[in-house]
């Protein structure tokens, strides 16, 4: 897929990982340019907020993430823009073995939705919720997810990137406050024949 970012300034808050690296490369390839720093220290049209994605890690303090994202949104309001949270699909479907990770992601999701309500229509705020994604190793979720994933495999990096591009696309202009899962159907229901 191709989108036209027309020189949009892109900035990253949070950790890098293979998905984020590929997202930034794709955004550059589609006409965006990546700037250092995050609002309010840097002007940006698109702010990516990258959270740890592997099950069992700490997703981060949702209150700090929300506060930082809100500060950035205030700065971005005049020129308008997009904020996209990169989080785990456990935000919408908690995992028994990872209660803290599930709670943190769910809380980040709630904060994302509150930001969407507060900063619309100038800023569209959305999230991508990644299920099991791997390149050579798992970079999001974990192998246990695969037993419940209807398509029967982990996602690829390029498949993870596509959803982020969708939320950055200027033509996708009426979607805000949403989490789009990229999980092969993991969160849709019981992927088993009972």
């Amino acid at each position, binding site marked *: *897929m*191709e*989108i036209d970012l027309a020189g949009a300034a892109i900035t990253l808050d949070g950790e890098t990982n293979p998905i984020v690296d590929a997202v930034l490369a794709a955004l550059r390839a589609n006409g965006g340019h990546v700037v250092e720093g995050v609002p309010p220290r840097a002007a940006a049209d698109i702010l990516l907020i990258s959270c740890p994605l592997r099950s069992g890690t700490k997703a981060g303090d949702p209150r700090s993430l929300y506060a930082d994202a809100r500060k950035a949104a205030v700065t971005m309001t005049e020129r308008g823009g997009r904020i996209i949270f990169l989080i785990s699909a456990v935000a919408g479907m908690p995992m028994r073995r990872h209660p803290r990770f599930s709670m943190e992601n769910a809380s980040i999701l709630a904060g994302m*939705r*509150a930001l*969407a*309500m507060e*900063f*619309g*229509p100038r800023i*569209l705020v959305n999230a991508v919720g990644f*299920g099991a*994604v791997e390149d050579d190793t798992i970079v999001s979720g974990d192998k246990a997810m695969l037993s419940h*994933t*209807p*398509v*029967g495999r982990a*996602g*690829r990096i*390029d*498949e*993870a990137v*596509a*959803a982020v*591009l*969708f939320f950055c*696309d200027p*033509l*996708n*202009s*009426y*979607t*805000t*406050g*949403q989490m*789009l*899962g*990229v*999980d*092969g*159907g993991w*969160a*849709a*229901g*019981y*992927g088993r024949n009972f």
Partner: protein
Amino acid sequence: MRCDLSDRVALVTGAAGAIGSAIAKRLSDNGAAVVVADIDIGGAERVAAGLRNAMACALDIRNAQSVDAAIASVSERYGRLDILVNNAGVNTLAHRVTIDEFPPEEWDRITGIDLDGLYIMSRAALAPMLAAGRGGRIVNIASVVGLAAMRLQSPFVAAKAAIVHLTRSMAIELGAKGILTNAIAPGSVMTALTAKLFYNDDGKFAGRTQEFLAHVPLGRPARPEEIAEAVLFLASPAASYINGQVLAVDGGWTTGYMM
């Protein structure tokens, strides 16, 4: 976005209407051959005539014979079907009443088209998809009322909520066969029909419109093209790990309470 659907055949139901025709155009503009299917064959023909590679098709999704005939005509013309967009649906303006007063025949009409019709259409369309073994995409057009209930339209609310969950059910049944099923839940969309409801004669939003738009963070209704853009993404090769999702394209309406 732009993507390459040049080897794909898509069938869009309700494609003579504002949203359906926008979806058909967006898929066509990205290379798909499009079957413009509608109970209004004249409208379908007009839409198809404006597309690069399209055929109009008379289709009543309540009627299995009509649906089978439509699928047969697609097979005859294109020899394949890759994308089904279940867009056809109805609601009522004449019966804005609570459930205790809701006429049973109107309940049957709405659920018969919105829910039963989607089942009849999907069942028939899956036959050639599964037989070909190339996988496929189904995009169901639900509604925000399937996510957050609204008053005075109980059959529409029930049918759209059913579509939301049916989408997930289809996703976990069909995902292993390479057929990905997702849904779009549009909020208010500005069309020629809804414009009459949204605007006063002076061109300003009516009071009731302003009231509900106060609950929409983006503060306006959608354009049909904005719904079509999301459908295009879910139908595109790029969305190959997205399955069982219900994406609200609603300007944030169902994000939370604006209070």
